[in-house]
């Protein structure tokens, strides 16, 4: 599959038409400036990488890339699922500021709709956005006036199930997407607005998936990868490679791909890997666990996830070779990270969870600079909100005043053990009001405090991450002074972000 110019410009965007917003790229850009590539691998947990101490060698090509990159060993996502995680990555804002916290959120709050990476880059760079995840695509729609090139989320899929991408909706694509895919005929979790056709469409989709799965059973014995539509790992990378080949410097590109998000679908040559008998430390089922999966199932899914990581790594290796041969690898800023991690413990599998245990927020971050030949490791905690301001700083743009993040260590910033890093899950909270039910964590001084605030469960967990990286021993009941101090900071943070909404009530 090749990606032609037509696919790259499949949907004309406002920026092409409005000279006041995005046409700076026609005014003459510094073509010697480096391209910036941000690759987001969805649901990619740092705990599963040998470079961070995992016993299975899941991603050897990544390890090769890391030898010429800045490696952030303790990088924390701001949310535990795509909507808040992606919003924080793209805006440099904490979830309580951008307020994209619900599973079906319509995007970031209007106050921040112009505060995003594409806006920051668009005056001096061409901007390109692609995501396979429809929930992340919401943000590309919302920020479209700063996007010079948008690649539809189904561009590299075997099929498109998106009605809103039909030509009839060309004049009103964003509203059609928000209405049809996000409400009327939902394909993922949650109910469709359409009482009968919604179910019919879902059954039709599942039936088609079953057929495709049978067709590719030899190549993908555990099932074919599927996001909003079925795709093949090699076709996805071929598509990305074609898109990258067409990029003209300087371009800021955001590529958010679905692997290793579930369903975990390794190719056949990886589907027997890691049958090593290795088991993960047993952890008690959490009171907030939604699914109460037995340990055996968690172990089996963990192994499948690791196999999928290995399969994706092989394709990623091909992409690296492609970028190397086109010269992009040596001359560009390349960022690899994720919107959130993945859980296989405490009764949970995946990331549809209220928990904020380490694996769901501990995500990889690798940044490679043009001409970089050696690896640099950083072990202090960093946040997803740091990525965007760091990138603007790297290319000499003014740091966005709105961003909550700071410059990453080694790239303009310093390692700071006293820095507080936050993650928040408030998927059941009202966007209008103060957050009453949420999970929030604060990490600093090598310790982590998690607060769970729900009507059916309230509790604090406090872990020493040096002595207890698996978060097995909750130190909060023994009331250490650092826990009290961090609880004070957490309480103050919650009070601060809730205050404007409590005044309104």
């Amino acid at each position, binding site marked *: 599959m090749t990606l032609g110019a037509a696919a790259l410009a499949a949907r004309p965007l406002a920026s092409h038409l409005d000279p006041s917003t995005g046409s700076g790229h026609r005014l003459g850009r510094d073509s010697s400036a480096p391209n910036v590539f941000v690759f987001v691998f969805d649901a990619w947990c740092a705990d599963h990488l040998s470079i961070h101490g995992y016993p299975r060698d899941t991603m050897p090509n990544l390890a090769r890339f890391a030898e010429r990159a800045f490696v952030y060993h303790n990088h924390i996502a701001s949310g535990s699922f795509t909507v808040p995680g992606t919003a924080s990555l793209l805006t440099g804002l904490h979830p309580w500021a951008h*307020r*994209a916290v*619900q599973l*079906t*959120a*319509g*995007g*970031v*709050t*209007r106050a921040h*709709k112009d505060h995003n990476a594409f806006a920051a880059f668009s005056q001096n760079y061409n901007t390109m956005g692609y995501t396979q995840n429809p929930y992340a695509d919401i943000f590309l729609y*919302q920020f479209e006036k700063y996007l010079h090139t948008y690649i539809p989320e189904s561009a590299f899929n075997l099929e498109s199930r998106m009605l809103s991408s039909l030509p*009839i*909706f060309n*004049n*009103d694509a964003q*509203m*059609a997407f*928000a*209405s*049809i895919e*996000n*409400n*009327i005929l939902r394909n*993922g*979790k*949650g*109910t*469709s*607005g*359409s*009482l*009968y*056709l*919604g*179910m019919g469409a*879902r*059954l039709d989709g*599942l*039936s088609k*998936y*079953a057929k495709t*799965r049978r067709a590719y059973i030899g190549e993908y014995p555990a099932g074919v990868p599927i996001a909003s539509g079925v795709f093949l790992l090699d076709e996805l990378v071929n598509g990305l490679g074609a898109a990258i080949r067409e990029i003209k410097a300087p371009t800021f590109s955001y590529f958010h791909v679905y692997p290793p998000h579930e369903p975990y679908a390794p190719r056949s040559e990886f589907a027997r890997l890691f049958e090593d008998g290795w088991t993960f430390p047993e952890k008690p089922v959490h009171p907030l666990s939604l699914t109460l999966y037995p340990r055996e199932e968690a172990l089996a899914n963990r192994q499948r996830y690791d196999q999928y990581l290995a399969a994706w790594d092989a394709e990623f290796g091909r992409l690296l070779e492609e970028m190397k041969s086109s010269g992009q690898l040596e001359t560009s800023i390349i960022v690899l990270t994720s919107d959130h991690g993945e859980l296989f413990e405490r009764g949970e599998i995946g990331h549809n969870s209220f928990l904020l245990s380490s694996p769901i927020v501990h995500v990889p971050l690798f940044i490679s600079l043009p001409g970089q030949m050696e690896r640099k490791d950083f072990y202090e905690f960093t946040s997803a909100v740091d990525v965007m301001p760091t990138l603007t700083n790297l290319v000499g743009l003014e740091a966005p005043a709105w961003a909550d993040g700071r410059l990453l260590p080694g790239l303009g910033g310093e390692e700071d053990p006293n820095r507080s890093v936050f993650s928040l899950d408030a998927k059941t909270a*009202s*966007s*209008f009001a103060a957050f009453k039910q949420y999970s929030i964590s604060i990490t600093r001084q090598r310790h982590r405090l998690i607060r769970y605030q729900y009507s059916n469960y309230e509790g604090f967990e406090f872990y020493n991450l040096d002595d207890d990286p698996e978060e097995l021993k909750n130190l909060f009941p023994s009331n250490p002074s650092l826990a009290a101090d961090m609880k004070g900071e957490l309480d103050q943070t919650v009070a601060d972000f809730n205050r404007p909404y409590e005044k309104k009530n």
Partner: protein
Amino acid sequence: MSTILEFFKKSLPEKKEVTLALAGLAFLVFGWELRSLFYNFPAFALSYSVGEIFAIAAYMMSAALLETAIVMSFALFMAVILPRKLFAEGFSYKAFFLFVGLAAISIHLQFVMNNQPKIAFLTRELVIGLAIWILLSLLTHFVPLVKKIILDILDRLTIFSYIYIPLGALSLLVVTFRLLW
């Protein structure tokens, strides 16, 4: 041609029965669509303008109108092809029970099924739905009080179709304009 028309005229349920069934169907379809709209409203309000929220509402109401028309056509088709006594007679409550049953199955499936369709599971749902439909239809047919209550409910739901159907038509017009211009 006249024979076909004559056949349809004979086979179709009475107008009054169709109106009552339509009222029940519109109530279910538009009600569920509105529930979805209001459920997502807080998120929309954060990131969309008032005009855009109205546009989304227009899309949803248009979809509800089209869905009502499609499902109603399906029910009328069933009435035509099935023996008259089985479906066309007492069409209002029999069709309404069918709509409620299918809606219950649809909602249940959307909550529990997020993987591959399991034929046995779907069959079980349909068999249970069919059994309940037969039971309710027989109950309504043979117990006058139940029949009166059901028909009274459908009669009162008619008022909603006077709101929903024009709302759907207006929304369809809005969406058509948005797509064309």
